[in-house]
């Protein structure tokens, strides 16, 4: 039991370190690299998704409890979110409806 808790504390430190690294890499990419705007956007979106996964797995313990149902619920929420955000941008900006 105490070994399990010890591993868990280590788990949290790893999660925290990962989240700091991901944040600073994203900032560095935007401020200090000559990449094109499109590449920067793609890169920071991917980094944000990894950040979210770090929070879900390391801090929110999504894989405990009724894990299948929890993962299905939150994944469905994320699916709807992607449809709303990407769909709105696609409709309103990329189709050039509003000039």
């Amino acid at each position, binding site marked *: *039991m105490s070994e399990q*808790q010890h591993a*868990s*504390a280590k788990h*949290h430190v790893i*999660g*925290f370190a990962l*989240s*700091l690294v991901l*944040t600073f890499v*994203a*900032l560095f990419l*935007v*401020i200090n690299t000559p990449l094109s*705007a499109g590449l*920067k*956007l793609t890169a*920071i*979106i991917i*980094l*944000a998704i990894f*950040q*979210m996964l770090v*929070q*879900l797995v*390391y*801090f*929110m*313990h*999504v894989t*405990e*409890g*009724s894990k299948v*149902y*929890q993962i299905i*619920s*939150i994944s*469905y*929420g*994320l699916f*709807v*979110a*992607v449809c*709303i*955000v990407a*769909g*709105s*941008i696609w409709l*309103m*900006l990329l189709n050039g409806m509003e000039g």
Partner: protein
Amino acid sequence: MASSSVPKGTPNFPEYQTEEGRLKIFGFWVFLAAEVVLFSTLFATYLVLADRTAGGPTGKDLFEVKDFMIETMLLLTSSFTCGLATLEMRKGNKKGVFIWMITTLLLGAGFLGMEISEFVAYVNEGATLQTSAFLSGFFVLVGTHGLHVTVGIIWISLVLIQVAQRGLTPTTCRKLFIGGLYWHFLDVVWIFIFTAVYLTGLI
């Protein structure tokens, strides 16, 4: 499915020991899924309107790298200390829960203070809710997150009062765990605000 039996594979932690606890934790995940959808509508609105500055200031004019990085660090660190509070709760260490949870709330309050002074500074620069579609979207999205942080601070404070009165029972542990889930979730939302609003504003 007798309500007293603990199913195989249930984690050996206090918050999962009753069927009520397990169901409420799952129910909270469903609530968080709904919150994801709520925030997605605000993100969609902001992102569609982000270029509509109506001659007013743009994100590049307003956003200060140092300020939003400090806000991000405060919230990321508070998510970590909140995780440590959950660990202490599972060890049955009430004092540890208080130390880490109060640290979490103080970091959250620091974040909130910075955000409020950021908003006040923008308004003083003439960047208000009415200035442009960009700023309406910005204040509503970031403000809704800030409101959630405020609710989180009040809610977790109330749970801590219960813990002080009743100790770490399966019920108070479940409340602490769910409060923690909410807090980590707010950090997830902030990561997307950091990315889609602040960093994207600098590109």
